[in-house]
Each structure stands twice: as C-alpha cells, then as structure tokens.
C-alpha cells in the first residue's frame, strides 16, 4: 500500500519500553507482526480502534503516538 499521511512514534516508544519487540506489541494488541511493521513504516494507517489499543499499551494518548501530516488544502 502507498505511504500514508499518518506518522507515528511506535518504534521510539517500543525502544523505551524495555525494547519491546514488534511481536510482543502485536501479541498485546491482537495483530500480526507484519501489521506492526507496516504501521511503523507508515505504509498502513491503522483503524481508530487499533490506534487506541497501541496507545494504551504505552500508556499514551493516541495523538502522542500518531501524528497526521496535514497538507494545505488548495
């Protein structure tokens, strides 16, 4: 899939949570490791529900984990 406009800090947060692996995060939110990889690489924009689940794992708000690369509307 194309690059999304949603950026994230999951990789940074994983590193600061005892170097949590992609698989560990995937197991905790009920997703596959490939999906975590795709989200981190900004190749896949998760659903709102999955975004909330990821944020909860790190004890953060959704907007602290995901940022929208807003482009000016012409």
């Amino acid at each position, binding site marked *: 899939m194309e690059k999304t406009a949603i950026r994230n800090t999951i990789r940074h947060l994983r*590193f600061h949570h005892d170097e949590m692996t992609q698989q560990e995060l995937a197991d905790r939110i009920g*997703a596959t490791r490939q999906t975590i990889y*795709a989200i981190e690489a900004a*190749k896949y924009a998760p659903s709102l529900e999955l975004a909330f689940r990821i944020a909860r794992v790190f004890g953060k708000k959704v907007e602290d984990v995901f940022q929208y690369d807003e482009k000016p509307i012409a």
Partner: protein
Amino acid sequence: MQDSYSPLPPTPMSRQEVYAWSSTLSSIVFALVYLLFVFGIPSLFEPIRENFIQAVVILVIVDVVFQTIISIQSSQGGRVDRDERDVRIAAIGFKIGYYVFMVAVLILIGHLFVYGFINSLADPVYVGRMDAMIVHYLVAVFFVGTTAKSVAQVVLYRKDA
C-alpha cells in the same frame, strides 16, 4: 518526534500472504491445466496425455494438503494470524478481482453476441454448438477473476514488506 533508528528489517511472510501466494499459484496452474484440457494438448505434452486426469487429481490433492497444513500450523501457534490489515488487503483483492471479472464477462458477452449472431446467419447449426463453448469461456473468465484477485493481494502484501 521523528524516528531516527536504523532501517526496519524486512519481515517474513504472514500466513495470509502465504495463502495469497498459494492461491495465486494454484489458480494459474488450474487455469493452464484447464485450458490445455479444453483447447487441446500440444504435441509436446502428448506423452502425458493418458495420465492427464491423474495429474489434475494429484494437483488438487497437493493443494488441499498444503492449505490444510498451513491452517493447522496457524491454529497451533496461539498467535493472531489474521487482522484488520489482512481483511483490508483481501477486500481490495476481491474488488480488483471483481472488476476484472466484470470486464471479462462484458467482453465475453460482446464476443458471443457478435460472433453468435454473425455465424448463425451463415450457419444455423452453429447456435447448437455454442453451448459447450460458453461453459468453457465462463470457466476461463472465472479463472481470470480469481487469479486477478490473488495477484492483487500478493502485490499489496509485497508493497508493505
């Protein structure tokens, strides 16, 4: 916060992607086998003509066994093997497969209408011979749609990898 870590390492294929690959390969193989069976076996394949049906049956068995092994492995792992991304990729694959299927059906209808009409004017017996060919064309169209669906899924999975 910008991610400044080293590039992400590639991930191995998920089970759903393995399914997509095996579905693509089996669609192509079945389509080729069917087309060879319907439209004639070239002289190159003449030596295996007698065992043709056996080869098809073996292909079906191998495919079923392969798919079953993947299913059993995925259920034993205890991990999620299908999530919302797989569902979305499957949906896009089905959408593309459906478009290809509809285009193929329209081409088929146009072909049948034009050639059937023209040939029936010249040869009224032709209409009676058309039925069997329609079935073969429909099966071919089915394979084209199925293959387009699984190829689209594989492409989407590989884009993310």
